[in-house]
């Protein structure tokens, strides 16, 4: 552990290992995200991208290693709700919105605020109306605010989920394959949206789509077999022969 580095970073992973029935999904994984940074994480299937997110958000407990958030909190000791309250938002690979709630209610549930039952029970509508309207505008769902989220198209669900992330106003956004199943035009728009968000938040994007990663134009971390293979600009890592080998096969 490097205490100096740790206090300066927003997210600090050090020697994290996870194994399922003997299969090592994460193998001594270490990397850091600085405050305000946007980072793309790529890697072939089974590289441990989703498991990494699971560890950060508290879904999976690592067998070893430290995950420090904001220079002080050890995330491996917290559960999902606590981690979310600390300011880490997550968008899932498969869009998960509350399908029998309206778009509006989805955002209302996500919006910053007290999360305990007593507060929600006596919560009065309207306090966050303006903010929800604003987010609806950003994710272009203003027209469909009263429709059930289940009735949205795949791309719209992805956007709604990003909107929910915005509503949460987290310090760190973990975005898992935001453009899967989107058209090229939608992909480009999503890249714009994420860049916009990155101005005020730290963002980690996991993505397969290389054009999209290029559009983002940020530092890239390549994962392979549960640990970092290479790190740097997209051009830099694509020139790395080990990365080429991993992606193109042996």
């Amino acid at each position: 552990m490097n205490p100096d580095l740790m206090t300066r970073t927003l997210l600090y992973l050090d020697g994290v290992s996870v194994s399922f029935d003997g299969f090592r999904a994460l193998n001594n994984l270490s990397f850091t995200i600085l405050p305000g940074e946007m980072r793309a994480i790529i890697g072939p299937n089974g590289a441990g991208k989703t498991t990494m997110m699971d560890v950060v958000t508290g879904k999976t407990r690592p067998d070893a290693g430290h995950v420090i958030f904001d220079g002080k909190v050890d995330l491996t000791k917290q559960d999902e709700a606590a981690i979310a309250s600390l300011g880490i938002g997550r968008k899932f690979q498969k869009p998960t919105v509350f399908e029998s709630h309206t778009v509006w209610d989805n955002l209302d549930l996500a919006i910053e605020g007290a999360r305990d039952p007593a507060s929600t029970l006596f919560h009065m509508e309207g306090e966050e109306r303006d903010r929800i309207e604003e987010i609806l505008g950003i994710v272009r769902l203003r027209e469909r605010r009263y429709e059930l989220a289940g009735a949205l198209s795949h791309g719209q669900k992805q956007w709604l989920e990003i909107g929910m992330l915005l509503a949460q106003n987290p310090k760190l956004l973990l975005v898992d394959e935001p453009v899967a199943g989107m058209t090229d035009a939608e992909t480009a728009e999503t890249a714009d949206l994420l860049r916009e968000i990155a101005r005020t938040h730290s963002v980690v994007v996991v993505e397969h789509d290389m054009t999209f990663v290029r559009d983002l134009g940020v530092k890239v971390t390549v994962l392979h077999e549960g640990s970092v293979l290479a790190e740097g600009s997209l051009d830099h890592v694509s020139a790395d022969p080990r990365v080429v080998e991993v992606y193109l096969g042996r």
Partner: protein
Amino acid sequence: MVLRRLLYALALACALLAPVQPAIAQADTASLIQALGEAKNYTELEQAVDALAATGDSAAVPALEALSAGALYTKKLGGAVLIGVERGADLALTDPLTGESAGTEPAGGYERIRVNNRLRRALRGAIGALTLLSPKPDVRQAAAEAVYKNRDAGALEILEEALAKESVASVRVAMIEAKAAIQLAGEADDATKLAALEIIEKRGGRESLALLGQVSANASPAVAEAAQAAVKKIQAELQWWAILQNITYGISLGSVLLLAAIGLAITFGVMGVINMAHGEMVMIGAYTTFMVQEVIRTSFPALFDVSILIALPLAFLVAGAVGVAIERGIIRFLYGRPLETLLATWGLSLILQQAVRTIFGPTNREVGNPSWMSGAFDIGQISLTYGRLWIVVFGLIVFAALMLMLRRTPLGLQMRAVTQNRRMAASMGIRTPWVDAMTFGLGSGVAGLAGVALSQIDNVSPNLGQGYIIDSFMIVIFGGVGNLWGTLVGAFTLGVVNKFLEPYAGAVLGKIFVLVFIILFIQVRPRGLFALKGRAVEQ
């Protein structure tokens, strides 16, 4: 010591199963017993007794014992010799040779055969000679055991004679113990009594305890103290036997639970289908057994002993067919909706129960035990029934067969493939709907087999299945869903725990404790004893 007791049990079992005496000897003995009634004076009677003793036929013993006790009578009309017990002015009569009842008749029609002291001694000698000196070791053994129990001081002389001749080790031990018992109960010096105590203490068991209890009352302080110590030691030993007995009860209960739960381990554990009608599959198996026995009773009575063997495949097929019908008719529409499957199958269980109630009536139906499943035997201080023993064996066989089926057959392979990754299995060309139906049918069929076994120990009524459903679910969850070994361990653990709680808490409270324990256990290990790990489980 355990070995010795095992030998005892074996010897006793041999004695019980030994073929009846040859017919010629029987006839001879019968006429000699008849002669007892024809004797005109004590001398003639003594000669008749000696003649009986000379036959060496232990079948004569009851008659001689009755004579000694003054319970042997001759009928005034015809002179038949019978054993009689006074019932007011009447005599309850039994045949001295066969032991069969010969009815009750007025005592006035009978004359008691009188004996004097001299004759009593002769009788004791004759009985001892017939039993303790019998050429058959098992008869000698039983006689020694009998002496041990009644501690008749008069038998000491002949016992010592027998002991001097005895060559079979186990019978010798029994005789030494019998002698010690007589010495302890009767008049003897302290040294003899202390030596006898040691022998009794070694023997152990509840009867020795009773004997030792009597000793302390009329003995010198030294003997009484030694007796006390011996009592303590035997009691400690008996406690161990009680634990062993509890374990056997627990294993027996565990095997019943295993049989009830194992079908569920397939439908719930492997397929993830909540079948609340599982208990009714068990009930169907039990009623199939009843039907098979009905047909056999009316048409082929000779086959009764194999009725269970006939019922087994039939119950498997009937319950399995009902299972396939349920899967095709209801459950396949509800895959992925476990709570609704639960409700629908509960509804089905109500219908099945009511249907059986309408057809067979609400009362218990009689299902008989074949001869090879009835009766009991002892090992040391614990007793086992053959029925329970067979159910344990049967439960393990079913378990092993299922294990083999899942591991070694193409159907088993397909089942595992479908449960692990349905879509992948389908694209490999496995007909997943067919596999679903077969898996469910298999689970139900196994429940039917359990029904055959349970019909032997439980009431066959429409409610039979309901009594097992909650237990079965508890066991499958406790053991770990999707793991047959977990079900095995879970069933036997819960069975044994239950039986250990029973003496302290009573049957009902014990069951409550077990339920509460499992409820708490699931909180600690939500996925059971042997949880499946890995990423697939997380989703």
